[in-house]
């Protein structure tokens, strides 16, 4: 490690220490804000230097005066740049889940105490968006887009919030380390395997067998459809029980990881994901079997969410699986 990279690593640690996040809400204070002249700021300083030398040489008293007036403008510009970000608070919330390959939209709520702020740049270095105006007292909500490629938790990367308002001479900036991530489901890709249910035997939207096949009550298990909860029994006994149906069990569809032999681990998850969506569309009850999880058959949006979440967070392939 050269001396220079040592210094840079040290500088990086120093940044890290000062900008470390403590929660979903980050308020920019003196400790977190940094300021440096921009390229234009350096050009401006060089201009002032030339004017100063000209004034010195020609003894032009008013040349001094105006040079110093512009210097003053630069100083005021620096202070105003700082005040444009100082106190700005960012609240991060997890975004709605997306499928891999889609763009996750992270909502960020920005609050400006006291003053209105102009032209706040938010994003990764180089790219990002400019927030035209942050009005005082009214939270401004900005969506930060992040392209997803893989399933799982995809965190919002480190952000830079910067401002060169009002004179472009100084750049005030801070790093935000938001502790939020998007849940990304596997991409629903049909790899061409036959569905584990017969397409002809579509059943009605109630999703289960007839009442006549009622087989008694059993204990509630997570994943059971709320439609099957025995509400009367609940009122009577205070115990959560579910109506069990003979026919339902027979018709239950199991989406099984193990049935997809010949596909790579990730491809299997993609296939299962496509099946979950399809099964949910047909309205049938379906269960999911993964190497490390098992979800009992049911249906409905909540069940669908649980299944997709299980697929999203399934353990990566071990050496044997690939």
């Amino acid at each position, binding site marked *: 490690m050269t001396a220079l990279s040592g210094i840079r690593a040290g500088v990086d640690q120093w940044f890290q220490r000062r900008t470390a996040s403590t929660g979903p809400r980050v308020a920019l204070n003196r400790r977190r804000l940094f300021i440096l002249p921009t390229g234009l700021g350096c050009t401006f300083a060089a201009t002032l230097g030339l004017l100063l030398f000209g004034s010195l040489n020609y003894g032009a008293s008013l040349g001094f005066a105006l040079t110093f007036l*512009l210097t003053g403008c630069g100083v005021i510009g620096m202070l105003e740049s700082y005040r444009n970000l100082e106190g700005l608070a960012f609240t991060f919330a997890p975004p709605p889940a997306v499928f891999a390959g889609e763009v996750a939209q992270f909502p960020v709520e920005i609050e400006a105490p006291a003053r209105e702020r102009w032209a706040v740049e938010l994003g990764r270095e180089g790219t990002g968006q400019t927030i035209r105006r942050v009005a005082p007292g009214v939270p401004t909500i900005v969506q930060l*887009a992040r392209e997803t490629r893989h399933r799982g938790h995809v965190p919002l990367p480190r952000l830079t919030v910067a401002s060169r308002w009002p004179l472009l001479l100084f750049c005030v900036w801070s790093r935000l380390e938001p502790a939020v991530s998007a849940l990304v489901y596997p991409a629903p890709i049909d790899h061409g395997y036959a569905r584990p249910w017969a397409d002809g035997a579509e059943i009605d939207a109630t999703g289960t067998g007839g009442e006549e096949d009622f087989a008694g009550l059993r204990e509630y298990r997570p994943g059971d459809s709320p439609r099957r909860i025995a509400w009367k029994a609940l009122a009577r006994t205070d115990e959560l029980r579910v109506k069990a149906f003979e026919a339902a069990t027979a018709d239950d569809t199991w989406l099984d990881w193990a049935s997809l032999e010949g596909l790579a681990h990730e491809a299997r998850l993609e296939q299962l994901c496509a099946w979950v969506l399809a099964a949910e569309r047909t309205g049938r009850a379906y269960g999911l079997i993964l190497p490390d999880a098992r979800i009992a058959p049911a249906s409905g949006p909540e069940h669908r969410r649980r299944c997709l979440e299980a697929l999203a967070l399934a353990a990566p392939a071990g050496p044997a699986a690939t």
Partner: protein
Amino acid sequence: MSSDALSTPVLRGLAASVLVAAIPHATHLPVWVSALIPAALMLRLGLRRPPARWLLVLLVLLCFAAVLARFHTIAGATAGGAFLSAMIALKFLETRNTRDAGLLICLTYFLAVSVFLTSESMATTAWVLASVGVTTVTLLILAAPEGPSLRQHLVHTGRILLQAAPIMLVLFVLFPRLPQPLWGMESGSTARTGLSDTMEPGSITQVIQSSEAAFRVEFAEGEPPAPPHYWRGPVFWQFDGRTWAQGERRSRELDEPEITGTTIEYTLMLAPHDRRWLFGLDLPLGADAEHERAAGYHLLAPEDVESVRRLQMRSALHYRLEPELPASRRQRALELPAQAAPLARELAARWRVEAEEPRDIVDQALTHFRERDFSYTLSPPATGEAPVDDFLFRTQSGYCEHYASAFTVLMRAAGIPARVVTGYLGGETNDMGDYMLVRQSDAHAWSEVWLPERGWTRVDPTQAVSSERVESGAGSIAGADDQLALLSRSDGWLKQAALAWDAVHHTWNRVVVGYGPEMQQRLLQRLGLADLGRYAMAVLAIMSAGVALAGVWLLTARRPAPMEPAQRYWSKALARLRRAGIEPALDEGPRDLAARVRRERPDLAPAFGRVVHSYIALRYRPQVPEDALARLRRAVHAFRPRKRAHETRTAERAGTQNPQPVER
């Protein structure tokens, strides 16, 4: 952001800034530059995009050549100013993004403030302030194109300038001033009104046309001494038949003047006149600034006076100059070109025979002017080849330089050492400012003759013809500029207003424009900070050194560390991949990237697969094969993707792709 095309409001703001900054330069810019600026502004606003680069390069070269042809230099206030203005016009023409606009704004600030090298009047200052304001508004618009309204920008600019004012004031007062310029400057490039270093018929008449202030005087005792007030300027010894030049420069064996009466102290605010001499009442004895005494007993500054100078001066009203005249100087004061003024020589020879002593000859000459039909006018008839004879015997009308010239020639012809003195005569007392104002229109020329025992004695032949001129000034003379006469010589409210305005002007010049090293030292002493100046330069030097060091550090720190070979080949491959349209993500390892290339660009997959394979072998295998690096080099060399071969996968992916702009 910096690649953004500029919005129309920004372009208009830039155009307005450049125009406002350039207007005060218009008077001393070559005509073609003055025309180039509005032309470039209109062209750019009309085109909405910059013209071709080769055209701009051509224009830059043309401007450079034109400035060089006109001024024979590119440096200095005038030539540099012309070149800078032309370059700003061309820079505006090629402005395309925020970066260009920022640079243009800096140049505009420079252009606006550089006006002060030529003029420091109140009007100029107000204009420059307005110019800085307009430019700052443009900068604000540039910083937030979709930001506040124009009215808010104007208010904001006003606030920034007001807040900057105290900073300006402190720096203005405390920043160390130099008594000497840092480097030599060209002089006489900008024509200023004032006495010149030669005198010929018509030269002073030109000066008199101007009502500009030559200098202002505050007397230590408050009251000026009794008139007449002769302000001594350059003294001329050498005559070639038509033109008087300074001639005598030797001043080493110059005797101290013998003071026979009171001396008087006063503060003189000298307007810049681009010459070295300083003016002083009657016989200036000394000034608080560095100076030397010329052979004509007028004072010279070490450098041309190019900005307002504030001088503490002392003068003698009664004195005796060189009662013993050295032979060399006596010789100089008697020289006449052989062919010059034969008729005048004849006349003088006659007087010389008749007179008993030199004094009589002087009286005789004055009587001649008074009793012959000599008249005094600002627009005399033209004189021919022999101006002195023509004036004395044909036209018999002229202005002070004619009289002074003719009189001096007559004296020399009669054997009396004589010389021409130029300067100012008179001045008006301004009660409001408690000072005396001497204008260019008070310019005057008179003679000095050397009389035994008395030494150099002032004789004003003009007085013999027109005592009015001596008593009430040039404005009372027929033929003087009417407006000038109205403004400066009439009585009543107009004169009062003019004097009040001049009082403001004087204060401005005295306090603001004249704030130099001497005044700063006095002020610091009064504030008890007398030592500040001594340390300020050292602090400044240390600060500059610090800034320079920081700059060097930043420049070196920016340079990326050299990469090891494997990394270098890998980044080369990635760059080629990027050009082919696949952007490697930060969180994407080589294997993932290869998988994506297989999916998105199957045509590239084999070649890129080889690159990945050899890279992984080199970086991650525990045992690195010996030829791994060479293999990677070959693989990278062979990996030359075309931009887009097939659009096969793209259509398929469109279904799952979100069409929204994507953050990378």
